[in-house]
């Protein structure tokens, strides 16, 4: 009896345990597959892939990374897609070749991959560098024109120059943000000779830095022999992937991921990083939380603790629950009509009349987007808080009242502390919903490109009227609106992974907070 029970379904339960466990397993598998796909496609992009030098039977040659293979349209063989870069030389950075026509494939160590500010990547050889790293500071410009370094030495000095450029860019940014901008704003307040002199000195230094950065060029040659001069300033990153060891590649990968996280986008969002979008997403979600929490909690307290529990309250409760099901784009339209045009337009007329007709608050911005999302997530917070309040046993309330507490004291000292975990659950759900929402944001303030984050050192520090970037919209934009979708697709994957991680991080913060609050006193005893 016992043996047969072990082999078949448990007696009296039939296939149900298997069915339920199966659904859990399938859900987990799908989730895992999703994250794996995003991680592999997204993070794999930053790994320095080897460059292949391909020679075709007709004698032509190119250097590129194989991306994918597909059967030929007419059948009979495969064709392969290479990322060959060099958009300025060849027109298209992609090349399809029939696999059968490939004569030879080699991986020479001296092939360089340059990531450039303009024209995308370059694949080929580094022939020479003009304007080498020789002079004393201040004399750099002199003599550099003549110095021509070639071969391996050119590569070494290019690497050194790029590191130097990075330092120069940082110094430039520091000079601009920490010295020139504050000085300029202080000068705007009142004329002052010493300040003006200081500013002039700083600006002179700025010009000097810019001059230093602009000097220097490299001579590049593609594998089919075309040559061009490339200013060093326009090079973001230089690699020789075929010559790199695994630790080198790992370091380059880490640096690539870091740049993706820390830098702004380039080339119409098809390259570069997503830092403004991360910042915008997190800031908007935090603002949304700050706005939605008090309203939601107060509304829930009214519905559960103050209002007479009659038909009207029940109706309101049903209405609130149904609001959670309204499509988000409807909230977007509402936000555009009421917040942006209505309230924002009025604010402009009252306080910013001198800048009209160019709008200040009367256009989409961080504040309106946060408000719209707060409205969108309000029902979630109300419902979760109300459920938390309803779970608190009446004898807790009566215990407080019996000690001479007023209703307000009972609420603030006993009921609300006990309902805090439920409120945080509501906030977790709200954040999860808001951070992934894109459709309403397109109407009320998200921008394709807003490299300046809405927080800076200028009064009032947090610029609520500014447009901002958002990871969700960034995915949409890179994946569908770039000039070169194929090149931007890995970035879309990486951004999607990042969006998931950001939401996860925000949720984990709230979950940790809730756990902390719960563990202080243990769970509600069940009587």
């Amino acid at each position, binding site marked *: 009896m016992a043996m047969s029970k072990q082999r078949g379904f448990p007696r009296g339960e039939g296939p149900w345990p298997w069915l339920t466990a199966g659904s859990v397993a399938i859900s987990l598998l799908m989730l895992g597959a999703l994250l794996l796909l995003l991680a592999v496609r997204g993070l794999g992009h930053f790994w320095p892939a080897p460059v292949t030098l391909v020679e075709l039977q007709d004698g032509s040659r190119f250097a590129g990374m194989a991306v994918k293979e597909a059967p030929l349209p007419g059948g009979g063989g495969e064709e392969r897609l290479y990322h060959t870069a060099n958009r300025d030389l060849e027109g298209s950075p992609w090349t399809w070749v029939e696999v059968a026509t490939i004569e030879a494939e080699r991986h020479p160590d001296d092939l360089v991959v340059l990531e450039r500010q303009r024209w995308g990547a370059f694949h080929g050889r580094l022939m020479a560098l003009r304007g080498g790293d020789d002079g004393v500071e201040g004399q750099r410009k002199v003599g550099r024109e003549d110095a021509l370094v070639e071969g391996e030495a050119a590569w070494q000095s290019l690497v050194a120059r790029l590191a130097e450029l990075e330092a120069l860019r940082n110094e430039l940014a520091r000079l601009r943000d920490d010295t020139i901008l504050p000085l300029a704003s202080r000068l705007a307040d009142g004329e002052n000779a010493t300040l003006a002199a200081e500013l002039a000195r700083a600006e002179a230094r700025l010009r000097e830095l810019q001059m230093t950065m602009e000097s220097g060029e490299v001579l590049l040659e593609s594998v089919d022999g075309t040559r061009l001069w490339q200013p060093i300033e326009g090079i973001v990153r230089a690699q020789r992937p075929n010559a790199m060891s695994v630790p080198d590649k790992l370091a380059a990968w880490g640096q690539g991921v870091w740049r993706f996280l820390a830098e702004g986008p380039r080339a119409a969002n098809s390259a570069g990083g997503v830092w403004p979008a991360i910042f915008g997403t997190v800031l908007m979600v935090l603002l949304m939380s700050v706005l939605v929490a008090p309203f939601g909690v107060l509304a829930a307290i009214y519905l559960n603790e103050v209002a*007479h529990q009659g038909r009207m309250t029940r109706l309101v409760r049903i209405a609130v629950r149904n609001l959670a099901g309204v499509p988000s784009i409807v909230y977007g339209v509402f936000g555009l009509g009421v917040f942006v045009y209505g309230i924002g337009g009025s604010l402009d007329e009252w306080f910013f009349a001198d800048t009209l007709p160019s709008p200040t608050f009367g256009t989409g911005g961080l504040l309106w987007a946060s408000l719209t999302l707060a409205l969108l997530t309000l029902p979630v917070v109300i419902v979760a808080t109300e459920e938390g309040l309803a779970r608190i*046993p009446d*004898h*807790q309330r*009566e*215990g*407080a*009242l*019996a*000690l*001479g*507490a*007023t209703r307000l*004291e009972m609420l603030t*000292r*006993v009921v609300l*502390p*006990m309902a805090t975990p439920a409120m945080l659950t509501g906030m977790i759900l709200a954040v999860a919903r808001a951070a992934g929402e894109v459709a309403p944001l397109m109407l009320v303030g998200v921008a394709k490109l807003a490299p300046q984050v809405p927080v800076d050192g200028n009064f009032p520090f947090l610029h609520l009227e500014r447009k901002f970037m958002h990871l969700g919209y960034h995915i949409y934009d890179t994946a569908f609106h770039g000039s070169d979708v194929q090149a931007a697709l890995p970035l879309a994957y990486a951004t999607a992974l990042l969006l998931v991680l950001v939401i996860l991080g925000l949720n984990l913060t709230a979950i940790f907070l809730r756990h902390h609050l719960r563990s*202080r*006193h*243990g769970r*509600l*005893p069940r*009587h």
Partner: protein
Amino acid sequence: MSDLMPPAMAPSGTILAFKREASCLEIEGLCLAYGDKTALRDVTLRVPRHRVTAFIGPSGCGKSTLLRALNRLHDLNEDVVRQGRIRLEGSDIHGPEMDVAQLRRRVGMVFQAPNPFPMSIYDNVAFGLRLQGGLRKRQLDDAVEEALTAAALWEEVKDRLRASAWTLSGGQQQRLVIARTLAVGPEVLLLDEPASALDPISTLKIEELIRNLKASLTLVLVTHNMQQAARVSDYTAFLQQGELVEYGPTDSLFTNPRLARTENYITGRMA
């Protein structure tokens, strides 16, 4: 016990004493209804000062409702309709000069399920005192120790006053709730089936506490455990279907009930 006692003697003696008791609470013609459902019908009784008075009766007889009327806990429920008068030391508890928060500090209440707040033991006891405000840290410390001692809990918790009250056992939690109530210095303590959720040993401790407290307080106890009423109370009121059926000294009510309805209930022959 009843066998050894001359049938008429002892009860009549206690009845005389009962009539002479000074009253703390006087309930006069109290009628109470939840909407159109009547819960109490014309209840009139006096609760003697510094005695334990027990309300007994079957479930739904209105004994808890009567108890909760004594500190106006029904005020929260808008459906409750009340008639009649309740006096605490001579003054009407529904009178215009009676502050309800003040009343509830004078008439403390302990509930059926232990309901410590989700705070530390110390904060629980200090809760009522902090509501009143105006106490220094030292005074608060002393008041907390005094209340916990009075509730016979001090020795058990004095080393972990900062621990969560929810870490205590059920019986300890109930004594903590009593301490919390005692801390605000009530004149009357209402106990709504205080031991029904506890194990026998904790129950005995609570009962002993009740007997000790009557030196300084008037206690009103609701219970459906008749042995408990017999063990701890001086006077017992038997309620049925919202009416006060019989009220008198506990020994005479249990040994020599005047009415057949009372006798049927206490001997377990419920109609």
